Every structure is written in C-alpha cells, then in structure tokens.
C-alpha cells in the first residue's frame, strides 16, 4: 500500500473524526473499533472526495469495513485498475 495514501487517509480520520492516531491501523474496523456510524461513513466519503478531488461512488462504501478497505478504495480511485 502506498504510504502517502495511508498518511492522507489517517490524517483525515484523525482530524475529521478525532480518532487517536495510534488506533489508525489497517485492520481497525470502522464501526466496532473506530466508532464510526452511517453518518460518519457518508461524511468520510465527502471528505475523501474533497481531499482527493475525485468522485467516489457511494455504493462502494457498502463494501468498506476496515480502515484498510478505505486505503484500497482511495488507491483504486486515484489509480483505477487497468483492464
């Protein structure tokens, strides 16, 4: 995983949702471990879009369970997989 993406996402999670940096590990579950709910998930998407300058399909959030999933989502948004 691109460490620049990890840093950007972690910074957003820390600043936007007040999550202590030590809790920001790839295996952390958004709901159970980081305390984010459905409203936070929507706002996370908005923050990510603003930060990345790219649109992310809201439906993709349905499959995001961990912080690691968010890293992957961001990476795929920035560098869409080639066919």
């Amino acid at each position, binding site marked *: 995983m691109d460490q620049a993406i990890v840093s950007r996402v972690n910074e957003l999670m820390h600043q936007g*949702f007040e999550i202590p940096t030590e809790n920001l590990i790839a295996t952390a579950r958004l709901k159970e471990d980081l305390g984010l*709910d459905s*409203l*936070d998930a*929507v*706002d996370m998407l*908005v923050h990510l*879009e*603003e930060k990345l300058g790219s649109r992310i399909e809201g439906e993709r959030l349905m499959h995001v369970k961990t912080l690691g999933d968010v890293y992957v989502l961001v990476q795929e948004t920035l560098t869409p997989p080639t066919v």
Partner: protein
Amino acid sequence: MKVYITGMGALTSLGLDTHSTFEGLLENRSGIQHFPEWEKYNGLHSHLGAPVAPYDIMKVPRSARRSMSRMSEMATLATMQALGQADLTDESCHSERTLIIMGSTSGSPHTLEAYFKQLFERGGPQGQLSTSFFKVMNHSVPANVASAIGYRGALLSPSSACSTSSQAMILGWELLQTGLYDRVIAGGADELHYMSASIFDIVLAASRNFNNRPQQASRPFDKDRDGLVVSEGAGVLVMETEACIAKRGGLPLAEVKGGAYFCDGSHMSQSSGEAMQKTMELALARAGLKTSDIDYINAHATGTLQGDAEEAMTIERLFGRETPVSSLKGNLGHSLAACGAVEAIASVQMIKNEVIVPTRNLDNPDAVCLGLDLVREKRAKKLSHVLSNNFAFGGMNTSLVISALT
C-alpha cells in the same frame, strides 16, 4: 399546581454561566463589540454584536457534537449547567414525565449561509456533509441537546423569535398544570451572525449610530436610542411541580407563578400596546396577582424607538410610577430566542439577591418613558413578584411572573 425553578444555566455575552452573567450585570458591564468585518456587507449599517466568549464544548462526545451549530452547543452547555444545579444528572430526568421545550429563531444562520453558498457554487448538493441539515432543522437546538445528554422523553420545539424561550417557559408552566408532566426543561438559544443584525437593520430597528462607540450602544428607554444590538447565547431553566420536588428532595430557587402569550395579529414588526397590556393582564390573572403585587418589571425594551415607547406607555397605563422597571438589553444585547430565559434567570437572581439591575446606557430617559420608575442605578429592594416581558416579530407577546419562595 405550584411550579418551581430548580436549575438554571446560561451562556451570555457577559459570561459562560449564570453566576458570571449576573456579576457582569451587577458591575454594569456591556458585552457589545464592534464587528469591523461586517462593514463589507452591502446594505448593512449596524456593525455591532454581543458575542459569547470562547467556551469548551469538548466534554460533549463527538457523536453528539458533529451535528451541533454554535446555538446547539451553547444550549447543551446551558442545559448541563441547569441539570447540575437541579441535581438531575442521574437517570431521573429521562422519563415520560419530563418534557424538554426549547427553540431558536431559525436553524443555524452560519450553517445556512455555508450550505446555500456551496449549493449555488456547485449547482447542487455535491460535497454537503450529512450532518449539515441537523444544524439547520427547526428543532435543531432541543434535538441536539437531547442527543448530548442521552435524553429519553417528550420534546417540543416552539419557535417565536425573540419570545421563543419565554414562551417555552410559559408553555411548560401550562403543561405542568395539566398534570401530564412533572418536570420541564425550558429554554432557547441563538447564535450571532450578521444576518440577524441585518434582519433588524432593514426595518430600521438595529443600532447604527454607535458603531464607533459599542459600549454606548443598546440604550433602552434613552432618548438617543437608535435600535437594538443583536447578541447570542442560551438560557435554560428546569421547572418542576411542587410534588415532584418534594418526592425527590429537590431545592426550589423561585416559583413560576404564571404567564401568558398573546398574538396581536396586526403587524409583523410594529408592537401593539393593546396586546402588550392584554398579555400582562392575562399573566397577572393566571398568577392570581394584582398590578400592585408586582415589585419589579423586567422589560423587554431592546432599545428600539417604537418598541420601547409602546412598552413604556403600556407599563405606565397598567402600573403607573409605582413599579420599578429596567431592561437588561443595554448590557447583554438582544439574544433573540435566548433572551426570555436569560432574563428569567436574572430575575430569579435579582429576587434572591434583593437587588434590581439598572438599565445600562439610560443617560437621558425619553420623554415618553418619564411616567415610569426607571431604575438607573443598582437598587436594593426585596422582590416578592417580578413580571418579565418579551415581545417578538409576528405580533408575539409574552409575560411571565416569577415569585420569591414563601
């Protein structure tokens, strides 16, 4: 059924709690400041406001804080203060016998401005946060308070601009009389924004001539008054029935003897003396008191030409020169939806401290107010019954009677 106040909380332009606010009133301080950044707004002539000092909201969990605008934050802190004083920080206030009644003039003007600015710039809702709406919905203040304190019970959100919180208290008193509830947590809040100043400025009701002398602005009953100064804040009171207090062992601070609200239905912005009189008479009748029983009138008097004159003439007609009168708007500015509760709290403090807070900036009483006993210096006086007036756009009039414990 007797109803008592058992807890009070406030954030005002003079302090972050009821104690510091009252100290500021006794010291005759002003919370009004000049806002040079408002000079850039086309058509806005009043550049004065009375902000609340920075406060600590971090004790409220992020999950509750994220949907709060400034008005909800202040209302939450005021509610926590009131519940703390009433010793109701345990589970007992979460009950189907408790009712929260709170409101604001509108949803958060700061959020409304930001929301629509982005909406127009982007041609749609792209980039809007999910929590924005919770800051602008009409019941944003009580809903956020409930969320912050984990409240489970009945909730109402009346909104009547500058009479919002006084109406909340009177409505609470009425509903407690029905026996349906034991306890009401009543109040209101508003946040400072240039839009609030402009609403009054556009109808020539906001102060324009004191932009360079903010401490002299807001001059209720004075001949040089030129309009009100908007402020912000929150005021919250816990009101409980006598039986409820006896059952749980609470400590009453003062009695809410009665109150009334009455709409004149004649003009949106011009107050009606006839309706003011009717409201005060109704409040007195509900309290079972005569005009001669009232020891002090806390006037709404915001420093506008017409409103102050109408209220002064009405008070003179009803009470003559026998009853001392003052307004707190010269100190606090006009906190709109919060002012009724804040002034009710100050009235309780005046009763308990046996002192009347004078009207700040009342240097030369207007000729139309000379028939009143206007309090211009701090005056020691035992107060058994206080009448507190609040009036609002839309022909709204409220009068509330607060009495000393007997």
